[in-house]
């Protein structure tokens, strides 16, 4: 077994140890950070957690199901707008949150039906998802004027929807969450999504999804319908992106068509590519790292963040297509095997005695 496939094996099934340590880390950050950081600092870190959830949706759909979704921002935006419209109309976030998850899932189901049951190639899936997200952006952008309203909410076109109420305690609109509460909700969401995806990947369903990524024809011959499994994975990814959208609105307090923009989809791709394809920890790390970088470049103001993002994307495709986490895993794996050899475990059969003697 090569070090790379071993790394991937550990990440998927090496099970409980790494899963619990990541969860523990997330919980530590969740409850530890408010003790050390001001409310303003917490606000800046909350967006990193929101983007991590968004990155996980891309990471699952692309890294595990092998679907080239280039338009995850479409689902992020749908979730964000669904939450905004629902919470203002109902005056209560209890129903708005599930709506913000379910609406993108329904949309993804229709889209996925045409893509996967049409059996179009991976590259075409990329093009269609990208095109749909751009058209959603243009559509929402053109809704200025009071005739475009859902219930009492004007969609507001380019300006978006202002003053969106935050989450409140379940069933009690009189008690909205403050900034610290939003932080707990976001981190709780991240923890939930991470655990859910780990669970899915360990389940039979998840293994079939990964099997289809590895070899679609073989999986089909065994008796699994790749179209159905891809569709379901795509729909799950859309739901997670919708949740990220809902939390994004809570962080920002308003929503504009910018969430649908192509750069948003590109960011999700970059998070996953930089962090590591086919891992769950990778997208989270990638999101934190890159979003922090974007914020820093954006604050500085002389260079457009797009320039940096573009260079990072090209550089990673050319130089490190596997991303950081698998790279580190491979390095650790290599260090471990070297150490084992030095300690004097039985030599592999094909090892050169001269070479190991020289070490």
């Amino acid at each position, binding site marked *: 077994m090569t070090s790379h496939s071993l790394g991937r094996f550990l990440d998927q099934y090496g099970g409980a140890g790494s899963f619990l340590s990541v969860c523990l880390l997330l919980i530590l950050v969740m409850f530890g950070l408010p003790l050390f950081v001001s409310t303003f600092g917490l606000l800046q870190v909350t967006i990193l957690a929101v983007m991590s959830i968004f990155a996980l949706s891309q990471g699952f759909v692309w890294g595990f199901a092998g679907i*080239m979704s280039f338009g995850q921002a479409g689902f992020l935006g749908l979730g964000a707008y669904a939450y905004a419209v629902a919470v203002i109309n109902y005056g209560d976030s209890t129903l708005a949150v599930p709506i913000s998850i379910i609406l993108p899932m329904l949309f993804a189901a229709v889209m996925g039906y045409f893509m996967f049951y049409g059996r179009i190639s991976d590259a075409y899936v990329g093009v269609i998802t990208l*095109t749909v997200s751009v*058209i959603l952006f243009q559509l929402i*952008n053109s809704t200025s004027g009071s005739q475009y309203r859902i219930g009492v909410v004007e969609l507001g076109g380019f300006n978006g929807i202002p003053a969106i109420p935050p989450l409140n305690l379940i069933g009690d609109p009189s008690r909205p969450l403050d900034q610290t509460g939003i932080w707990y909700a976001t981190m709780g969401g991240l923890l939930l999504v991470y655990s859910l995806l780990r669970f899915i990947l360990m389940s039979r369903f998840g293994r079939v999804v990964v099997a289809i990524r590895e070899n679609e024809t073989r999986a089909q011959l065994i008796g699994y319908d790749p179209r159905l499994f891809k569709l379901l994975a795509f729909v799950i990814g859309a739901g997670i992106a919708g949740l990220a959208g809902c939390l994004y609105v809570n962080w920002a307090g308003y929503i504009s068509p910018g969430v649908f923009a192509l750069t948003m989809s590109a960011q999700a791709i970059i998070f996953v590519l930089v962090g590591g394809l086919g891992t769950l920890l990778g997208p989270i790390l990638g999101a934190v790292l890159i979003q922090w970088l974007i914020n820093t470049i954006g604050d500085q103001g002389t260079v457009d963040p797009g*320039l940096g993002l573009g*260079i990072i*994307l*090209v550089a990673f*495709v050319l130089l490190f297509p596997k991303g950081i986490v698998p790279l580190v895993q491979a390095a650790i794996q290599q260090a471990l095997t070297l150490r084992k050899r030095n300690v004097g475990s039985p030599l592999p059969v094909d090892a050169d005695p001269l070479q190991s003697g020289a070490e």
Partner: protein
Amino acid sequence: MDLAGLIAFNVVTGIATLCLITIGLGVIYGMMRIINLAHGELMMLGAFTCIIATEAGINIWISIFVLSPLVVGIIGLVLERTIIRFLYGRILDTMLATWGMSIGLTGLIVTVFGNNVRTLANPAPSFGIGAYSTSLYGLVIVAVAVGALGSLFALLRLTKFGLILRATMERPGMAAALGIKPDTVYMATFALGSALAGMAGAVLAPISGVSPVMGVAYITRAFITVLGGGAAIVTGTGLASMLFGTIDELVSFKASPVIGSVAMLMTAVVLIRIFPTGITGRFLRRSL
């Protein structure tokens, strides 16, 4: 009657516009199987070249038909040599890399020129169709689109260069065995596609306005048309442009341009559900 004439004129212009937007993408996709997500940004660079050249006092027609294709062709050449050529055969990686190029180029132009819209004076006079008045520039677009499709067809079908191009795309190994360098051919094809994109951007600049983020407005239409058209460059682009251009213009007239795009997309999605390889994947397979 006047209205019908105006609509007919707009439909023809719309089809020609779609042809122009798509042709550069079609050359690169049809010949090299690379989906160039930086296509819109190459058009944007063409438009910028045109506006900078005209502001420097160069004749607008020379800027559109000579300078823009030349400059963007060279940029395409450089991008192919430095990035794309390492990724041949990996279609998804090329998509990611060209997407990176697209974001990077937009970011670069925003950094240098600022994120604002510039306008280019429309060089053609307007004329009347009965009670309605419209710009003669539409005829320029139609002429350029027909000219571009025609010369591309002639290039591929009648010249030795075209023969080498088609041979390399069909069987790179065999072409190489016969003494052709596939690497050089790919390079030339990418530069040709880029130059066509640059020219398209420049031709449309007087109508669209020029801004660093204008590329996004084109790519959806271009992608839909290429997907719908299939692998044959000239026939596919032509047929798909006719279909989608007509739908787009008619729906845009009835509703709004955005709804026109939505109608185009929905037609394309249904079309691809029926013919997964596009129109020319099913009909006229031997065409160019």
